[in-house]
């Protein structure tokens, strides 16, 4: 792998993780805030709220995982490496 490809891969890996984590991070924060408020208001609905939170977290965090996987592939199994 030549030096330009290596440098571009490292920069792209950092951007993939960094930019990919911004949106899910904001979304997870607001979702967790709403869930904790809901549990505090209605403790009897705690199970359902946590279940819904699990669903939403799993889908939001998968966006982070996509970026993470792209970064790891670029770093450890780079398809552009000659």
């Amino acid at each position: 792998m030549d030096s330009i490809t290596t440098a571009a891969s490292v920069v792209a890996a950092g951007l993939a993780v960094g930019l990919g984590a911004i949106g899910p991070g904001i979304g997870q924060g607001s979702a967790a805030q709403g869930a904790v408020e809901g549990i505090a208001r209605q403790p009897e609905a705690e199970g359902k709220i946590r279940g819904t939170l699990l669903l939403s977290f799993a889908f939001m965090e998968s966006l982070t995982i996509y970026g993470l996987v792209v970064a790891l592939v670029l770093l450890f199994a780079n398809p552009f490496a000659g």
Partner: protein
Amino acid sequence: MIDFAGLSQRAFGDIDASPHKGFIDESPSGGFLVQSELLGDSSIHETLLDPETLDEQSKISQDEYLQLQLRIYRLAFVLAAIFVVLAAFLFGQNTSISILVGALSGILYLRLLARGIGKLGSSQKIVGKIQLIIPVILVLVVSKLPELQLLPALLGFLLYKPSLVIQFLLEPKVQ
């Protein structure tokens, strides 16, 4: 001059006129003033704030959340088994092993995520990020072992998502 007599007549006169005996007026903050609150009856609040009642409610909710997790894991295992068998017939043994490794990683990831969400609000203020180590380890292991393939392993890892969707679609509506 403030007409105190008129104000009290407006406030307490609605108690009998209201069709809902419990509610008499909307408070400025958007909630409802309950008649028992105005009359000083605090027994309802004592019941609601009773530690034993709250403990029972919390245990029931935790059981409900635990049962939901178990149903999701069971469905994820069934889906993983179906996909592994299909891949073994259609694509070969290496692909099916990759899907199996990915599916087990996905279930472990979901378990860690569910544990983090279960602790939210009680012992933790934020949901932990420790579950993100699972896809990292998966990609590293798959890239180091020549027997495993990256794409089937990632597809197997994402098998927890259909199980979540199916579980929430099949979930009985609680009245």
